[in-house]
């Protein structure tokens, strides 16, 4: 047992073992860089422990139960019961498998793992306070540091009390479905969880300051998801700000106010507040490095993920939008390669994003408006899912695939998909964009029948005026 302060050295110190940090550490070690990874809490970070993975596990359980309960049209009669405690235990197993895998992969690649909270002591030195009584601490001197400390839920307007007001983390650890759930915020996390809990049987009300669900997306995209959520019984209260809450004998009373100050009361048993996430920059004594954050709290970096300090890098949620796991990992790879002396840079043309609602949303690259703003004269092609044979056989024919291309060169610029498996379908468009593919290239690629991906091909053909399964405009 290590007690007291010992001191070691490393080429690359990585702070935080989320998808940004652990990917960077493994990649650097693979490149022969002596790498030390410090994690204060759990391997895999937000993503594996309380983000992407837990949420998708619950979504699968909710879809399985809800899907079977609503399949009379196809001759399936079922009245499923969901045992949330068991669902949670399963989710925990999935998480443990993956976090255990991360730890094993780090070790197998030769990453030095240190458990504890890293605090910078100087520009080249960090102190790691080990968890638990009498575990002491450790100093590590480093040539390069990579900060991947991620983000945490914004605690506003309400504080999280772990009982009445939960963050997504709390909601993803419930052992029972609340009868009445009030969700503050209709961003992607709020919408994924609202849909999930509605499918699991909760009465869900969503309070959103802005005037639409998923306001980051185009209207016709988010509308498909909002309608489906409404069909599941989700009640939306747009243009209302959550103001206060209190306990009453019959549950919680939440007061909201519209922009004129008009108040409304909502009854609920539980509040899930999902209004955004803040970068974590207050856990590692950034001051000792002399690094500053920007007005949004992020650590500024260049296209090599380098901070204002030449030997310090930052990746993932702490380094700016989009706060997505795959963006964190992509940056982690670049930073590791740069440390290893490779001429790497974040020069990917597009970062796809998915929302795992019902149906899913996935986008990559530019919308038509963004293309116009960027100086293109975009052409657009679209395929409605109700003309997709595969979507019909899945009994899930809502939404569409849209592609945006440059009118002159027909280079693919972007895609907006709201459809079953949108998160998977977007991969083909991401590759098309990175490759500098033209519409014709995608149209000439033979697509398997019957698949949802055929809709991508049809959208592309539609943009060229040669769609077969829809009328060309």
């Amino acid at each position, binding site marked *: 047992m290590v007690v007291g302060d010992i001191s070691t050295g490393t080429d690359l110190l990585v702070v935080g073992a989320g998808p940004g940090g652990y990917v960077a550490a493994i990649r650097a070690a693979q490149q022969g860089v002596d790498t030390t990874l410090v994690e204060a809490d759990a391997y895999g970070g937000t993503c594996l422990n309380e983000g992407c993975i837990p949420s998708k596990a619950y979504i699968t359980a909710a879809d399985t139960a809800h899907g079977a309960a609503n399949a009379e049209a196809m001759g399936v009669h079922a009245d499923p019961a969901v045992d949330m405690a068991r669902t949670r235990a399963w989710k925990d197993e999935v998480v443990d498998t993956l976090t255990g895998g991360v730890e094993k992969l780090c070790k197998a690649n030769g990453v030095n793992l240190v458990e504890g909270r890293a605090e910078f002591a100087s520009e080249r030195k960090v102190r790691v306070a080990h968890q638990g009584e009498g575990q002491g601490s450790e100093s590590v001197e480093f040539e390069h540091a990579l900060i991947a400390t991620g983000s945490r839920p914004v605690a506003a307007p309400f504080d999280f009390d772990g009982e009445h007001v939960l963050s997504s983390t709390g909601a993803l650890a419930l052992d029972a479905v609340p009868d009445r759930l009030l969700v503050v915020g209709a961003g992607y996390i709020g919408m994924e969880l609202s849909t999930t809990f509605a499918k699991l049987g909760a009465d869900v009300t969503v309070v959103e300051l802005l005037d639409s669900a998923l306001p980051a997306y185009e209207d016709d995209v988010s509308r498909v998801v909002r309608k489906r959520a409404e069909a599941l019984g989700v009640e939306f209260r747009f243009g209302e700000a959550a103001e206060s809450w209190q306990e009453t004998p019959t549950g919680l009373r939440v007061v909201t106010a519209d922009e004129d100050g008009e108040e409304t009361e909502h009854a609920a048993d539980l509040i899930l507040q999902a209004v955004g996430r803040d970068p974590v920059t207050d856990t590692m004594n950034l001051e000792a490095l002399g690094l500053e954050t920007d007005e949004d709290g992020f650590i500024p970096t260049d296209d090599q993920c380098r901070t204002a300090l030449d030997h310090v890098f930052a990746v993932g949620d702490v380094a700016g939008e989009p706060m997505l796991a795959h963006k964190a990992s992509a940056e982690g790879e670049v930073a590791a390669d740069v440390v290893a002396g490779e*001429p*790497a*840079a974040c*020069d*990917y*043309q597009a970062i796809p994003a998915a929302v795992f609602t019902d149906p899913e949303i996935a986008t990559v690259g530019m919308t038509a408006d963004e*293309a116009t703003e*960027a*100086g*293109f004269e975009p052409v657009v092609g679209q395929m409605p899912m109700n003309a997709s044979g595969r979507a019909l056989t899945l009994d899930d024919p809502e939404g569409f695939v849209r592609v945006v291309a*440059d009118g002159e*060169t*027909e*280079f693919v*610029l972007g895609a907006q998909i709201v459809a079953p498996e949108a998160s998977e379908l977007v991969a083909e468009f991401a590759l098309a964009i*990175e*490759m*500098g593919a*033209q519409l014709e290239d995608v149209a000439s690629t033979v697509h398997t029948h019957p698949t949802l991906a055929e809709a991508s091909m049809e959208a592309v053909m539609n943009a060229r005026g040669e769609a077969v399964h829809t009328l060309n405009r």
Partner: protein
Amino acid sequence: GESDGEVSAKGGRVFAAPSARRLARELGVDIETVPGSGPGGRVTEGDVRAAAESGGEPAGTETAD
């Protein structure tokens, strides 16, 4: 930068496969200045190599906005 660079950098984008972009960095070529000979003006690995051989503009020379 060279004026023919703007052809391939339309809309702030260079149309080139990741492999060509990486090659440009390796050879120290600013890909935004490389004229593309591929379909639609896509910059190919060959274009990047040609630019490197003819002493193309070094990478890191930012085109002013």
